[in-house]
């Protein structure tokens, strides 16, 4: 790596100049971002501490921790329609998107860590965007129950997963357009927009988050992943860049 290290920083690192950090009593982290860490007073030098890199919070374990078995059945059936499998590239199920969704909903995203959920909660105009008291995890839970209830009441099947693929597509289109109205305080359009977005996130994000298995989605489109340096390729116009995809933990076949 040819990173240019700032000269003063280097002096600081090797010269052992003490950075004046005077942290007062730590408050519990409220949220990711502002007012989430102890207050610091910084004076005299750029502070730096060994072993403190803000490394990404990847997914761990196996199986579902947020979805109930009934919810998992819906998720697996629905993402298979949002991104179906075929010879062109993996489907969302094959890319492990349901596991990604489970870990996202079980974590800070699901809890609405970056959502303002305070009241009051009028519905608002479409331009005012997401207007719900539900955190993402709560919205998924309520929406999955409401969709299965809708299927039972209107489409003559026990659950969404038991519908034929064409009927599943039709219902998903109804959620997308908002033509299908759901009970349980669920705005169908809002849920569908979040669900589709999260599905694509699981499909295309770095494999450390549990989806994009074997970087199959990146291989399908030709994205080389978290590649550090393309300098030699900038002016090689129209040539195919031969790098196989690489993620934060390397790629399958790499020795660790």
């Amino acid at each position: 790596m040819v990173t240019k290290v700032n000269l003063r920083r280097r002096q600081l690192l090797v010269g052992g100049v003490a950075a004046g950090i005077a942290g007062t009593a730590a408050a519990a982290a409220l949220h990711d971002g502002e007012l989430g860490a102890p207050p610091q007073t910084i004076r005299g030098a750029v502070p730096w501490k060994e072993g403190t890199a803000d490394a990404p919070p990847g997914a761990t374990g196996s199986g579902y921790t947020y979805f109930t078995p009934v919810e998992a059945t819906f998720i697996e059936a629905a993402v298979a329609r949002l991104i179906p499998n075929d010879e062109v590239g993996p489907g969302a199920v094959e890319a492990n998107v349901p596991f990604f969704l489970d870990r996202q909903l079980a974590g800070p995203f699901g809890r609405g860590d970056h959502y303002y959920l305070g009241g009051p909660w009028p519905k608002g105009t479409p331009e005012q965007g997401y207007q719900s008291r539900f955190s993402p995890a709560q919205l998924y839970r309520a929406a999955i129950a409401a969709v299965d209830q809708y299927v039972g009441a209107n489409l003559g099947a026990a659950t969404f997963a038991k519908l034929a693929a064409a009927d599943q597509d039709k219902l998903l289109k109804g959620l997308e357009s908002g033509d299908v109205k759901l009970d349980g305080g669920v705005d169908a359009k809002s849920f569908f927009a979040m669900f589709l977005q999260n599905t694509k996130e699981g499909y295309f994000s770095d494999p450390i988050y549990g989806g994009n298995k074997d970087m199959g989605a990146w291989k399908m489109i030709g994205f080389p992943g978290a590649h550090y340096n393309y300098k030699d390729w900038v002016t090689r116009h129209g040539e195919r860049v031969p790098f196989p995809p690489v993620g934060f933990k390397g790629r399958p076949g790499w020795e660790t």
Partner: protein
Amino acid sequence: MATTLKPVDAVLVGFGWTGAIMGQQLCDAGLNVVAFERGPWRDTPTDFATGFAQDELRYMWRHHLFQNVSDDTLTIRNNVNQEALPMRHLGSFLLGTGVGSGGVHWNGQIWRFLPTDFLTKSHNEKRYGKKAVSAYDMTVQDWGVTYEELEPHYDQFDQLCGTSGKAGNLHGQIQAGGNPFEGPRSNEYPNPPMLQTYGPTLFGKAAAELGRHPFPHPTGNMSQAYTNPLGAQMGACTYCGFCEKFGCGNYSKASPQTTVLPYLLQKSNFTLKTECEVLRVELTADKKRATGVTYVNSAGEEFFQPAEMVILSAYVLQNVRLLLLSGIGKPYDPKTGEGVVGKNYAYQTMSSVNVFFEDKLMNPFIGAGALATVIDDFNGDNFDHGGLGFIGGAYIAGMVTGGRPIEMIYTPQNTPAWGLEWKHAAAKNYLRSFSLSIHGSCMSARGNYLDLDPTYRDIHGRPMLRMTFDFTENDHKMSDYLTDRAAEVAKAMNPREIKLNRRTGSWSVTPYQTTHNTGGAIMGDNPKNSVVNKYLQSWDVPNVFSMGAGAFPQNAGYNPTATLAALAYMSADAIKSQYLKSPGPLVRG
């Protein structure tokens, strides 16, 4: 009760670009300065190291470097007849937080506004008549500062950042290869332009064939290694395609971290306090002088920091809110048109054209924050608006900021958003598509403004800011005209097909547009029409200065950062050369 601290010469409220610039300038002048930042400390090796910086999910979609709206957001509506509701999730704009703030996760697109952009009212009125500037309830104004006055300060920012580009106008002489429409520059860019990938190259050729004047986008991404006047060193960009919404792990993007902090933090008269949120500016009983600021830290402790001078250097929306919460200046009333604080909020009018090739590989993942070839033929008043029914314009950029696949897969017209058809379109077009960005001006209008929300409050119990905004007919007409001009270039690139993404309907908070919010604390030549004078000094409380794009009376068709940085340098100059000798109004109101 708040604990009272030892007095200082100046406090900075917020530590992004303007906080860094003012901190450096005032500390060099010998002032004792304390900066408050409500977000965390951030630096390259800890927070965006190359080993994990290129994480689309975490930074773009999970907002790891952005303002966390769960504690503090704003309310939004399109017009005064609606009830404003909270922006519950970031979308249209991605507010910064933490040390460096938006200066960490910006693209590095460095533009100067045109000389005529500073004379929006008088210039257009003179050329197109009174109606041209008053139609559609527009409330455009002149800035009270000229390009000529700002030029040395634009140059200071270019030197600080190591801007890579090619001058188009040096001392009034038009230069081949640069932007022939720009105002005269006193110096060439400190670094040569970035290399161009295939898409921007094809765009430039097509634009030139149509008689336009393409040039490389000026950028704070380093085309080569650079040492700035403060001694900070940066490395050459590797075109990894993760600038916008990301921190640079490679010291290749100008930011407060890479250009100012290594110098500033060594000064014994500078202190930076993080996780400390300023609640209000405290005033004397007659409201003519600020005595300091009250802030609360993340441990919940409250302090009063006395200061001789208060510099509001937070983001536009926070600066305006602090002015309103502190009772500095008269709040704007859209019914009467009286008052000034919150007046003339404006934004940026964006559209795009996607270009799809059958066989040409664009390799969109080779990118950088401002890797683009641009035409400026239809920006500002660079073209005759006679009979067009609008003022303003846009630059049109054939740009590749990257090929991040969750956000940046373009599919042809009428492709569904999911299913096999979507997947096949994504697989077929990802490597073979390209996008033209149309970066339009936004004229201020009577009904677009900022004030305090009557219902929603933040975690400290303070009213949230309320934003009332919609695009005017002027901006829709401008955007349609400019999108058509971009489509001409797109077609001249000989693609298989193109897709026009026009700016239609009312402003929505959901899809990302730009984080170029402007106005609300506008500058001008008298206290009746503005919040601050040309030195960004409050007309009402002369020891308070309000930095940033809040000072823009309307927004031009360019990214705002260089202009707000130049304004900060000009303010610092006036403080050092005049105000410190004789504290008081720098301009008689």
